């Protein structure tokens, strides 16, 4: 039902808008990323997408335990990744520009 070209077209458009919107937000805050900071950010977004996909695939395949445990474990990793990224990268950059 959802596994078709239209869905992936919507996902692609959404991802493109997300990148543009995030970049616009950074410009507004007068923050610029170097290559590894972009790498960490895009990596985090892909990891978040993988976390969601891992959970839904397993739940749909009746592997409830794997879906729930995967969401908890991968979700914690994604949150820690986001918090560390904020604390060590974004927060300092915003502090410099304010």
């Amino acid at each position, binding site marked *: *039902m*959802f*596994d078709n070209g239209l*869905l*992936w077209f*919507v*996902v692609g*458009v*959404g*991802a*493109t*808008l*997300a*990148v*543009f*919107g*995030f970049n*616009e*937000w950074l*410009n*507004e805050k007068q923050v610029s990323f170097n290559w590894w900071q972009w790498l960490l950010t895009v990596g985090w*977004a892909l990891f*978040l*997408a993988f976390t*969601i*996909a*891992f*959970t*839904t*695939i*397993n*739940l*749909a*395949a*009746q*592997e*409830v*335990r*794997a879906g729930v*445990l*995967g969401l908890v474990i991968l979700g914690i990793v994604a949150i820690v990744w986001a918090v560390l990224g904020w604390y060590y990268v974004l927060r300092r950059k915003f502090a410099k520009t304010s």
Partner: protein
Amino acid sequence: MHEKRSLSRRDFLKIAGAAGGVASLAGVGLAGWDSGATGQAHTGWQSEQGLVIFNREPFRVDKPTYGLAKAIPDRLDGREVIFNRDTALKAQWYTSKKGEAGLDGWMIDYYAKFPEKLQLDRVRNEKIEPERVENQKKYGNQYIMSQIWSAAWSAVSVPRSDLPEKTDLEGLQKPAYKIKDPAAMSRLIKKVTMTFGATMVGIAKFNPAWVYSHAGADGRGYKRGDPINIPDWWQYAIAFGVPHEWDIVKSNPTYGTSSDAYNRSSIAAARLVTFIKRLGYPAREESPNGGYDTMVPPILIDAGLGEQGRFGFCITPECGGNFRPAVVFTNLPLVPDKPINMGLKSYCMECKICAEQCPSRAIPFDEPKEIRGVVKWTISHERCFNYWRSVVGSGSCRICLALCPWSRKDAWLYNMTKSMLSRDPTGLMAKMSVEAQKFLYENPDPQTYYAPTNASVRPPEWWMQNDPFIEIPSAQGASVPIWDALQEEALLDNALDL
């Protein structure tokens, strides 16, 4: 008066970006859900469109991953096969009411050599099967719908073959069409076998070592114990597999059946035999309904369909063990495939989930051992079959193939994992994957598969249940002791040492 508010370009992009991000993540989640739930993820159902593809070429090797201790392994006597042996025992020991005195010479010699097998065969006939009859009365109603479904699959079947010199040569096109190019013919055979319903097809050079030395039972033109002579037109073996219905496999053992895949593979084999004969070449099917003169798993492995797994089956990259095979012998000019090494044997050495989860403890935990000149894993057929005969509902079991990590659905997450496992020569991925399998995925307590719990690997889907379709008395709920295979064996004179 309200102040007129305008949306700046920057605000628009920020809002659109946030909305796009949420939509993307939701889309990925929906795609994931669909990947796991859709019937398209039921591996093998796409076969007639050729959509199940695992590129075996990078994994081709000159020798299969099972070992050979002899250049030419000894042939298995078909009378040893537990189904044949049980039929003979029932007739000679029980139906004749002569007991041990009713056994023929071969059975006496066999049981003298393997006395523990006689004990387990007797336990099955004298204790387990009568207990199952009682348990079936108490709990069997719950599984009626899957039994009806199974019976429907058995309603259409192919006739059993006769002797090779008769059946293989019937209906041949004369003169035979001259084959231009064996390689092209091999591609054609694989294509048409898929259109007949196969999910994967391979070709092996015929190996007489896999053919039974003697017929295991009356039928196919043989009398039990007749030597099986190999005709000279058995030169190639076309091996293929057809998957089980997915929901049924996951609800093993009680709701399980093999009738669906048995039927599909048998009919595909019969169609392929007709196709080859119409080209003018002899052909013989070795299939669940058509009958066997041969062991099948080593032929699948030789044909490059997969590797032998710990529970004895050929495990394929597409379906794991979740399929039923058939083979066609012929002398149609073909080009054999090479076997593959997709890292399965190494994985099985680490995994052992099937051995841990087998309620009969029939699957070995140790390394492959030599039997008849072949180094391979061999299960305890007696323990396995004894458990089958205790199962309420199906009277059979496929828990090992349902819980094998390689049997997962055709979803990208599982396919990606299998692909990475096949490409990691260090074995590190296998170690990580096994730990993840055991921690993340549910593996029920094997004792719960026995009566009175009668658990299944996963809950049955709606269409296997009686409600809300038919009125039927519910289970009486009387409690009977859980039948414990190991405890039972401990009472025997010679406890088995697997």
